[in-house]
């Protein structure tokens, strides 16, 4: 409020005048204005009377004494006081103990930090955060196992190979146990091919499907309309189907050559290489699949060989334990390890070449892959499993992502609400 005649004299200036917190010029101006302006005088007088009334307010009496006791200090939610720590040696120790400086004080502060506020909101936020962590971990694991499910829309080929070979220790253990039951060799191959890749595959027909290394080569061209994940899982010890398919090859191999698994592997490698060399020039046959078990994954001959070696070696161990010697088992495992290392390098090169092939095939000019590239045979069952996985995994992962997002939001919201329930403490 200001006066019309003295607009510069505000209530704030009058209030400061009451407290004698104005300059001499302001004081002179106010005293002169009060004489001339009755409204200004009323404002000043009422303000002064208000201050007088406030000064006249009676002092309130304390309802009780506020002296401190050790029990009060101990029961307080704040950190353990210096009193509680130093009361017993107050006389002998003039130096006060700083509260919260030692480990006990820090631990107590940490506990108190979580004990303040609404505990229900705190617990709910913690549960939401834990759920978020679990979902995140699950999502990561799923992505790691089925990368193609998340990359289906991407054209570039992505090839990943997971080869889990039985370690020498397991083999040795199985051999020592003389039962061979626990032996398991697993090869998991996951590969992705671009949607329109036309590639030449070296197929050795049914004989090769059954593991015969020197079966007649059958060049077959296949166009893959869709990109699908392929997972080949051969568990020699547990999967009887794989054993049945691999057993004849092993028998044939072991019957014709008694050089052990290592020499068999070398022979298989040579046979695969020779089969690949006999490939006929590719001709594009788009959108056609000639056989139900036609492969959908471009794999190197090394991969094929690895599968065959693994199947044959493990099947040989389980089928004919009596024929297995310690040298065979060891050499087989060593070969598996070496080939597994080769697979990584070769598949990386395959992925790059497949990408180039994909770009070329886009113009309907099918470009044959190098002879070293060949498709591995896949069973119809594996193909069906892969297709099913490709259909169901994206929906499941979408659900996981939604739950993950919801749990993260819930953790943030509940944490914020819990934080709001905490009393604000101002630094002294």
């Amino acid at each position: 409020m200001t006066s019309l005649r003295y607009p510069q004299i505000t209530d704030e200036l009058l209030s400061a005048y009451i407290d004698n917190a104005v300059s001499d010029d302001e004081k002179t101006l106010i005293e002169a204005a009060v004489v001339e302006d009755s409204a200004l005088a009323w404002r000043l007088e009422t303000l002064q009377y208000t201050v007088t009334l406030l000064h006249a307010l009676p002092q309130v009496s304390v309802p009780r004494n506020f002296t401190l006791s050790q029990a009060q200090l101990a029961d307080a939610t704040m950190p353990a006081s210096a009193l509680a720590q130093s009361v017993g040696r107050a006389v002998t120790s003039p130096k006060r103990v700083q509260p919260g400086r030692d480990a006990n004080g820090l631990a107590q502060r940490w506990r108190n930090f979580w004990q303040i506020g609404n505990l229900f909101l705190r617990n709910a936020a913690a549960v939401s955060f834990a759920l978020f962590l679990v979902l995140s971990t699950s999502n990561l694991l799923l992505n790691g196992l089925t990368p193609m499910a998340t990359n289906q829309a991407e054209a570039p080929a992505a090839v990943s190979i997971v080869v889990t070979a039985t370690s020498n220790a397991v083999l040795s253990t199985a051999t020592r146990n003389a039962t061979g039951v626990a032996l398991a060799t697993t090869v998991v191959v996951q590969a992705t091919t671009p949607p329109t890749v036309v590639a030449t595959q070296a197929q050795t027909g049914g004989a090769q499907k059954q593991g015969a290394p020197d079966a007649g080569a059958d060049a077959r061209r296949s166009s893959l309309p869709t990109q699908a994940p392929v997972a080949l899982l051969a568990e020699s010890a547990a999967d009887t189907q794989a054993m049945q398919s691999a057993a004849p090859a092993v028998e044939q191999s072991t019957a014709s050559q008694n050089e052990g698994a290592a020499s068999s592997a070398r022979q298989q490698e040579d046979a695969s290489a020779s089969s690949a060399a006999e490939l006929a020039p590719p001709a594009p046959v788009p959108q056609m699949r000639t056989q139900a078990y036609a492969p959908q994954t471009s794999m190197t001959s090394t991969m094929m060989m690895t599968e065959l070696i693994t199947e044959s070696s493990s099947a040989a161990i389980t089928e004919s334990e009596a024929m297995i010697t310690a040298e065979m088992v060891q050499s087989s495992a060593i070969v598996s390890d070496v080939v597994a290392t080769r697979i990584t390098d070769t598949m990386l090169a395959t992925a790059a070449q497949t990408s180039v092939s994909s770009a070329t095939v886009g113009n309907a000019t099918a470009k044959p892959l190098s002879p070293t590239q060949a498709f591995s045979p896949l069973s119809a069952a594996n193909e069906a499993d892969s297709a099913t996985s490709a259909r169901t995994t994206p929906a499941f992962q979408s659900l996981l992502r939604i739950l993950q997002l919801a749990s993260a939001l819930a953790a943030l919201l509940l944490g914020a609400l819990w934080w709001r329930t905490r009393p604000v403490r101002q630094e002294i």
Partner: protein
Amino acid sequence: MDEQTVVAQALNGKLNAFNQLVLTYQNLAYSIAYRVLQNENAAADAVQESFIKAYRALSSFQGANFKGWLTRIVVNTCYDVLRVQQRRATTSLDDLPVEAEYVAYLVDPGEGPEAYAERMELNQLIEQGLHALPPDQRTVLVLCDIQGHSYEEIAELTGLPMGTVKSRISRARTRLRDYLLQKPELLPSTFRPYDG
């Protein structure tokens, strides 16, 4: 025993010495807390909390003005309580009933019944006017006009700039005056609204 000696003993960890300081300043602390918080129980809790804080922060006390240091702790504790109350507030302070019970311990037995009734009614009106003020304005008004601190002291106690302290005090006084004018019959004739 002077205050410095008692403070020194309290710094050495003597609880009895600190309790002497408590007894000395508990009226001051409770008066501030009660005027600011306008609630007996909240004020009592704030005072108790303030003394506990003061004891724990005693090692950080540097200087001779223990009263000012303690007052600052009380004001800060009241700010904390006010913040919590504002978070949990479900009703406006202005909606509180105008007629309230007299506080028993405010009664002065040496006064006549009629004068006592008029004074108590006016005091009650002032208390209600204080209650109606925003907490920030009420705090500086209590420190200035009830506790008698200067602008500089209030700025130091509250951590506010001097200009903010001045403006808040001015607005608080003006607002309280306007509140008191709602019941002019309790005020002297000079306090009646100016007709121009």
